[in-house]
């Protein structure tokens, strides 16, 4: 079977349109995950022991079960409680929740990596706890957190095809539809692979660039 260029140009516009959806889903999911991760991390730090271990267990469950299963679970179980979610809402929420668990671990370990002396110095200088966090701790923690956060952004991008199982019209679903319509899978699936490479490789190097930049700015 050989590659048909005519067919390639014919299907490219609809794949590019689907790429927009893939990127949108990634950005929306990531914003949710950043906020959710922060909530989980802070609840583990400041909350009671009981709350801390409940959150810990929840994070463990989310991290050790398949994303695909979680997508199905949320999409089909939410209506049982009277909450009918559209595929987009269900998909993005599951992505966001799944990666919240990972990001909260990143936040937690980078907050822990800020040396004790920094906290003590803030106490000695009589900084409020708000100032301690915003001006001293978070900028330093961010520098350690950024590589991990960037990696998870790229993995989230690569997990968006799973949303196709509940009918989110992203790249994989579109490629599949084209393939079954024309009985040609070579071009659509290969193009999807190339588009993912073109998205994830630059994203990965951008993260690296940002990481170095931040280190220079913070003087680390």
């Amino acid at each position: 079977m050989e590659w048909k260029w005519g067919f390639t140009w014919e299907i490219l516009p609809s794949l590019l349109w689907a790429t927009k959806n893939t990127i949108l889903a990634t950005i929306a999911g990531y914003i949710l995950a950043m906020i959710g991760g922060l909530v989980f991390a802070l609840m583990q730090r400041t909350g009671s022991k009981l709350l801390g271990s409940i959150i810990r267990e929840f994070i463990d469950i989310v991290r050790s079960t398949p994303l695909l299963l979680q997508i199905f679970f949320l999409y089909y179980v939410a209506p049982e409680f009277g909450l009918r979610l559209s595929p987009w809402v269900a998909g993005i929420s599951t992505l966001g929740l799944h990666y919240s668990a990972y990001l909260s671990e990143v936040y937690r370990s980078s907050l822990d990596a800020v040396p004790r002396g920094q906290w003590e110095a803030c106490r000695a200088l009589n900084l409020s706890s708000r100032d301690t966090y915003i001006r001293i701790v978070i900028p330093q923690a961010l520098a350690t957190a950024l590589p991990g956060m960037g990696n998870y952004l790229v993995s989230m991008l690569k997990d968006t095809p799973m949303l196709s199982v509940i009918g989110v019209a992203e790249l994989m679903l579109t490629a599949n539809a084209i393939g079954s319509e024309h009985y040609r899978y070579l071009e659509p699936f290969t193009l999807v692979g190339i588009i993912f490479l073109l998205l994830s490789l630059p994203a990965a190097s951008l993260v690296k660039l940002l990481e170095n930049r931040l280190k220079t700015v913070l003087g680390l």
Partner: protein
Amino acid sequence: MAIWDFLQVYGVQIARGTLVTCAQFLTATMVALVVALFVGLGKLSTNPLIRGVSVIYIELFRGTSLLVQVFWIFFVLPLFGITLSPFTAGFLSVGLNIGAYGAELVRGAIQSIPRGQWEAATAISLSPARRMRRIIMPQAFSIMLAPWGNLLIELLKSTAVVSLISVKDLMFQAKQINSLTYMPIQAFGIALIIYYVMSRAMITSLVRWLEHSVAQRQGRV
């Protein structure tokens, strides 16, 4: 329907799915270990061709999505005359994908062995192959055990994707039962619990045990 009645009716189907998932996990792990070892060593090779191939392999499999790889291997390879059964295509693509991540673990662990170990091995005139096998690898092995534990959990989670090319694994059966019974809480909930137990109880404790026995053999405990 109470949970016990549910299990009585669908328990066998769930158990069969769990077995298929276990089989996918074991076979994909084999593929991933072999690939990781060869590609990881290849990336450290002094031969630019071998190094180049390894780098391209890693970037290709880490840069595209697992789902895309599964579909490509299952739907596109037959067009080139390579037809694989769903089961084979499933564990092969999961193994090849995780192997690319594992290769970086192997490379990192080998590079973290202190320079002095290499020099000492050369000084007592061990051949490069023997040096790698007897001196470097055993130390690298104990360093990379813990990250491999995490990667194996990722692998187990990834095997759920093979249900999309109709391998009848746990994910597939849960979906099937859900569409038969419209009881998503039971169908997907039980599958969630099984996956959780498999990764927490089985993989984590296996890796702990391995870490402990390696530490003992190397006289660190």
